[in-house]
């Protein structure tokens, strides 16, 4: 969304809270557990971006997570397409929520969220710190980590971050490649501004970049 107009002010009443309703954090937990247990297909984030743009913008943040979590479960075959609708009806008729407990499993789930390996070191990066690079012009059909506002613009490599799975191909499936922190000048991205100049830095995968 970088550089778009028309979304209004950032700070609004209540905007300092992470969530507005208790169900939102439960959806966050469901989504996290689907990932931990490996019972969903793909990445929630990539799937959320498949929402038609008008729906995406109209939906609340955790509304998108709710949609993507159900999608992941159905696409994996963990749930049938009508399973959730079925329980919506049962709850409407006043049926009680089923409840199961397993304290050890609960402890393991929380422990699992504490595990996150760092990006491995890049052994043979194509670009070096100080190199001038350009973000390629492209029009990817699905998920990408190369924002529109930077495509076609040249910047300078500031750091080599490490290697990571290329995210555009399939979630967690692509080949690994180096990731670079690239510094861009505001006027190259957005033209002149009455704010003067500033620097915008993005972490960009090697495939997005060419020598400038």
């Amino acid at each position, binding site marked *: 969304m970088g550089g778009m107009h028309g979304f209004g002010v950032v700070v609004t009443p209540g905007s300092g809270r992470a969530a507005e309703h208790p169900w939102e954090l439960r959806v966050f937990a469901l989504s996290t557990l689907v990932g931990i247990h490996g019972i969903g297909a793909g990445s929630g984030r990539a799937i959320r971006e498949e929402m038609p743009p008008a729906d995406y913008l109209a939906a609340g943040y955790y509304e998108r997570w709710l949609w993507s979590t159900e999608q992941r479960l159905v696409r994996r075959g963990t749930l049938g397409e009508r399973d959730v609708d079925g329980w919506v009806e049962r709850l409407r008729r006043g049926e009680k929520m089923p409840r199961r407990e397993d304290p050890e499993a609960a402890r393991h789930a929380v422990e699992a969220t504490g595990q996150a390996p760092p990006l491995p070191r890049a052994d043979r990066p194509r670009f070096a710190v100080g190199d001038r690079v350009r973000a390629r012009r492209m029009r990817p059909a699905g998920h990408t*980590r190369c924002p529109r506002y930077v495509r076609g613009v040249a910047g300078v490599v500031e750091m080599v971050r490490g290697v990571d799975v290329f995210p555009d191909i399939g979630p967690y499936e692509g080949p690994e490649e180096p990731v670079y922190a690239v510094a861009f000048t505001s006027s190259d991205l957005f033209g002149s501004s009455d704010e003067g100049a500033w620097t915008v830095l993005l972490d960009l995968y090697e495939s997005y970049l060419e020598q400038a």
Partner: protein
Amino acid sequence: VSDDHDHDDELALRAAALEAVLVEKRLLTTDQIDAIVEHYERDLGPQNGARVVARAWVDPDYRKRLREDGAAAIGELGYGGFEGGTMVVVENTPDVHNVVVCTLCSCYPWPVLGLPPSWYKSPAYRARAVAEPRAVLREFGVELPAETEIRVWDSTSEVRYLVVPQRPEGADGLSEDELAALVTRDSMIGTGLALEPRA
């Protein structure tokens, strides 16, 4: 307003139905869900990042380690996990002010800041932070000198960012705990400054 309310009720119902299906099918337990919610509400949050910042303010060696390998140094204080595997820590100085955004989504360093506030995930912040940072900072009540270099970090990869705000003047005699109390969430995103110590 009543339409919004109905819509919220529908979403709450669908969220409950999804939980019910997964519990009924024995794929999840209720207390796993409770435990994750509680962990993210109680254990993770800006109070963790504030401890990291306060330590960096008082311990130059720690500050150095933090700059060299953010996740490892943050791990020394017991924090780490999802959305914190690779951490880059940037420091605000009288000359340079760093601000963090995720224009693509909502990437945020959960272990040190918890889950992001709504404004961080809003289209307005995602659109404007890179394109008019001073106007956005002004909304947060932050007015920087014209000569301050602003560096906006767009979290586009798996790297997550933490800002070490400038240590406020007049905080010399304070303990590490007292310093941590001056470190706000927004000051670690770059949309705020650390609080002034009370005289």
